[in-house]
């Protein structure tokens, strides 16, 4: 029987050597590219197959449902374009000529939020934990948007925020994993105030109708701030109503009608804006005062018609007539019109462009790793979109983009069935950005 050959290195020596080597590891520089990348959220699990999953939540019922359906169509069109290399996907330099994103098909599911945070959170939690969503998107109320961005932060999944106008979304509630494209109430008010000064005048008395949640208070605060500071307007107070809980605004409108104000600032949004404006007319408010809607909802023109909205000033994230001057807007509006048989409204624009901006960041990062995608978005790379050049600020993750100021057309001025507004100003993004980041304290690392 052959004797086992005795090695010159004992087991004890091997263990000692291994311990010594481990002790020196922290001092050895391993190039980052060679080191195994740390798993973050659903990455890399969610990006291993031939497709990546995007979780979408939009309200299909409740007061913001009309806007929510438009929002969803924007996501549908963007995902179709990205997968087939069509529409704007054929023009974004970082991925044009390619189908899918980094060679993977984008698949998505949509869930109805009922315009409430809880169903949205339940659905997005399922999308993150069950479907391994690599990105989550879609919202139409700031209450929902803020809840989703906090969820995204908790699970470390990227969130391209849908529609949300409250200052808090990229202000005190800003999150490392969330990026918002819609102008904040601050930006909208700053863009709107000079137009109001010119068209309605200085030193007016204003009264507000306000839904009782983050968005309503944010818009009231910012509109008041700029009209008072720059135009010498005086606020006679606000009528605050419970959001989503009332269809009859008579008690608030009676107070507004009897307030002696010159301007009625209606902050209500979606179905609530439609109902309150209709009732305001019945109370004779428009015989006595001009109406301003700081953030006009998607279908307010269509739902109320020019007899209510003609001459009303406000802002919108996007209005389709930009397609007459901007080639990127033309591609978006024409392809949307061809597919859905009407011209897109701004919730569809937010959905569509947020998908494109995200895809661009992924393509430039060459990975779905959220840490690297966030770094690309924060780098401030300028991208041509339907509003012109857009980019993100790293300090608050608010998109720097132009803000359209619009006025409702009269029936005689309308050229087609979707022609409800005229763009009277397109304020460049850098001019309206809040200098103090509205209380956002963005962490520097993930």
């Amino acid at each position, binding site marked *: 029987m052959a004797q086992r050959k005795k090695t010159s290195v004992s087991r004890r020596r091997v263990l000692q050597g291994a311990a010594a080597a481990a002790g020196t590891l922290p001092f050895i520089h391993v190039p980052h590219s060679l080191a195994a990348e740390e798993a973050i959220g659903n990455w890399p699990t969610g990006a291993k197959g031939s497709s990546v999953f995007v979780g979408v939540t939009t309200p*299909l*019922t*409740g*007061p913001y*449902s*009309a806007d*929510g*359906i438009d929002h969803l169509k924007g996501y549908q069109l963007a995902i179709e374009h990205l997968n087939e290399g069509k529409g704007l996907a054929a023009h974004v330099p970082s991925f044009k000529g390619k189908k899918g994103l980094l060679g993977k098909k984008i698949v998505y599911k949509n869930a109805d939020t009922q315009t409430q945070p809880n169903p949205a959170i339940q659905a997005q939690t399922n999308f993150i934990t069950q479907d391994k969503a690599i990105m989550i998107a879609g919202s139409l109320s700031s209450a929902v948007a803020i809840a989703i961005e906090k969820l995204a932060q908790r699970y470390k999944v990227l969130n391209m925020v849908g529609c949300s106008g409250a200052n808090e979304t990229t202000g005190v509630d800003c999150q490392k994993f969330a990026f918002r494209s819609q102008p904040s109430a601050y930006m909208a008010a700053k863009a709107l105030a000079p137009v109001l000064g010119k068209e309605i005048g200085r030193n007016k008395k204003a009264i507000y109708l306000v839904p*009782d949640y983050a968005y309503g208070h944010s818009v009231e605060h910012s509109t008041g701030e700029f009209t008072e500071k720059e135009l010498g307007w005086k606020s006679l107070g606000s*009528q*605050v*109503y*419970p959001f989503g*809980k*009332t*269809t*009859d605004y*008579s*008690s*608030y409108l*009676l*107070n507004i*009608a*009897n307030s002696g104000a010159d301007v009625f600032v209606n902050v209500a949004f979606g*179905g609530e804006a*439609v*109902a309150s404006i*209709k*009732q305001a007319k*019945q*109370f*004779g408010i428009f015989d006595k005062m001009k109406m301003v809607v700081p953030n006009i909802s998607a*279908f307010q023109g*269509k*739902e*109320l*018609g020019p007899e209510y909205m003609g001459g009303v000033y406000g802002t919108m994230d996007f209005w389709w007539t930009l397609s007459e001057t901007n080639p990127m807007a033309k591609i978006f509006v024409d392809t949307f019109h061809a597919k859905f048989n009407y011209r897109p409204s701004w919730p569809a624009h937010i959905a569509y462009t947020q998908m494109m901006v995200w895809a661009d960041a992924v393509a430039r990062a060459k990975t779905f790793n959220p840490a690297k995608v966030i770094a690309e978005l924060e780098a401030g790379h300028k991208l041509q979109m339907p509003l012109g050049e857009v980019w993100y600020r790293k300090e608050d993750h608010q998109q720097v983009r132009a803000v359209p100021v619009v006025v409702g057309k009269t029936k005689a001025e309308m050229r087609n069935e979707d022609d409800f507004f005229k763009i009277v100003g397109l304020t460049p993004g850098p001019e309206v950005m809040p200098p103090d980041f509205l209380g956002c304290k963005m962490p520097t690392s993930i």
Partner: protein
Amino acid sequence: MGLTVIFGALGVVNFAHGALYAVGAYAGFVTYEYTDSFVAAMAAGAIFVLIVGIVIERGLIRLYYQRPPEDQILVTFGIGIVLVEGLRAIFGGLNRNLPAPSWAASIVNLHVTLYPIYRIDVLVIVAVVLALLYVVLYRTRLGLIVRAGIEDQLMVNILGINVTRTFLTVFGLGAMAAGFAGVINAPIVTVSPDMGADVLVQSFVVIVIGGVGSFWGAVVGGLIAGEILSLAAMIDPAYSDVMLFAAMAVVLILRPQGLFGVQGRQ
């Protein structure tokens, strides 16, 4: 009122009531689009929902009279969802505008304040309809049977009344009341598939305050609920719903059968 009649007479908690209200508003809206007549819209809303009510009663509800209340709640809740989603499939999610009739579109000066004439007209229309309903319930043979059914269904059966046909009429009338309410409220609110959701909850609170199956209970309960909502909204709108439910809780503690209800009613 439709809810209390159906609940009182048939013992069915009709969770499709809000949806029937929305169906009525849409029927009125479509009729108005074609005829430009608000009176035609009111008639169409009421009659269309009467027909829908009859179809629902024959097709489903009658199979559930002997089933436990939770089954009835589930089936009417399901009918409500089907109706609302049907409206959304046909008309989309956009809010539709049914304008106030031209004879009621102006404003009246009440000296203390200006007030839309249409809202005053609604008060008159509702008073007339309530008077009609009162006549039907308290001055006709049908009303006698319905009221007897509310008090003691078994005895009405024993007395040889065709309860099945009466139940059909009652359900149809209750549905019609919802449809009619949908049309007359449409010029004030907006016509959307979800418009009945809030109305349903408030209607239940009204009949609980007033007393299940009581005509005057529904009238007085409605007035009390309206006052609570409006007055609370003037002080702090966030608490208007809370105050409504608080009032309901107080009524339930002090007088569980409701203000005008009769104790022990099944």
